[in-house]
């Protein structure tokens, strides 16, 4: 696909908007359909598209495999970290009410926090798996 001008330019134009949409789906997940999982997949799709059109080396210069693998683990830690934080603030594990003076605001912060963990994990997992599939055939044939 490296010679296809329309595909190359189209992909380059689309990638920032896909990333923006992914962030919108995450941060607007309280008010509209969507949430962490969908946002993570959409963010990953942006980089998968870039990798499909420009090749694995180009996308791995932007997102090294070690980075996305770390993301996969980091997201789980963020999720559990929010739970531990609420425990330290005197609440139950993942009881977000204690995160702010008003329990409703605390719920907002907590939900955005754990959803951010989901986004990071799903994004890291999807991109890692894509790297593994795409990179497998290159050396070992």
């Amino acid at each position, binding site marked *: 696909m490296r010679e296809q001008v329309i595909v190359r330019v189209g992909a380059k134009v689309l990638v920032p908007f896909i990333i923006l949409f992914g962030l919108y789906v995450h941060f607007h997940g*309280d008010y509209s359909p969507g*949430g962490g999982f969908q946002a993570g997949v959409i963010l990953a*799709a942006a980089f998968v598209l870039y990798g499909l059109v420009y090749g694995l080396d180009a996308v791995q210069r932007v997102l090294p495999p070690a980075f996305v693998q770390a993301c*996969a683990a980091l997201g789980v830690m963020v999720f559990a970290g929010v739970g531990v934080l609420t425990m330290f603030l005197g609440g139950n594990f993942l009881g977000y009410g204690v995160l702010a003076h008003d329990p409703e605001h605390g*719920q*907002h912060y*907590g939900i955005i926090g754990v959803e951010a963990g*989901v986004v990071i994990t799903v994004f890291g*997992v999807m991109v890692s798996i894509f790297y593994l599939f795409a990179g*497998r055939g290159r050396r070992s044939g």
Partner: protein
Amino acid sequence: MRIRNLFAVVMMAGIYSLLSAGLFTIMDAVDVAFTEAAVGAGISTVLFLGALALVGHHERKPGHTPLLPLIVVLVTGGALVYGTMDMPPYGDPGNPVHHHVADHYLEESPHEIGIPNIVTAVLASYRGYDTMGETTVVFTAAVAVMLLLARRPRRPEEEEDEA
């Protein structure tokens, strides 16, 4: 009718997934539709194509007759259809599933959680513990794929050393 070209099979699976997403939208399960469209029709199709690039896109002829698989499919399908006989009518508001905790979620989540998307409220707050488990499952899946696929090709001298 049988398709031996796996490329066509992957495309059909993607189309099927996209149609299911439309179906979920009609049934007002927009969050599920969103996931189905993004994962089922999007990422899975790309991963299937990546796998096809490795293994080739023609299915070999199986060495057995289709009789046994046909029987298995018919028996399983029959059991599932028989199982639906006992299910409450679809979409009936009096169904037990709508009166366990769903009432509480629908009535109280605007005051307890304060966000309009009840699906997010249930997923991230009421069932936050479950969602943490799911995130861990996604992570575990990635680790499993890494263990299976990320083997580096060994050099011949290393293999001799280990043998």
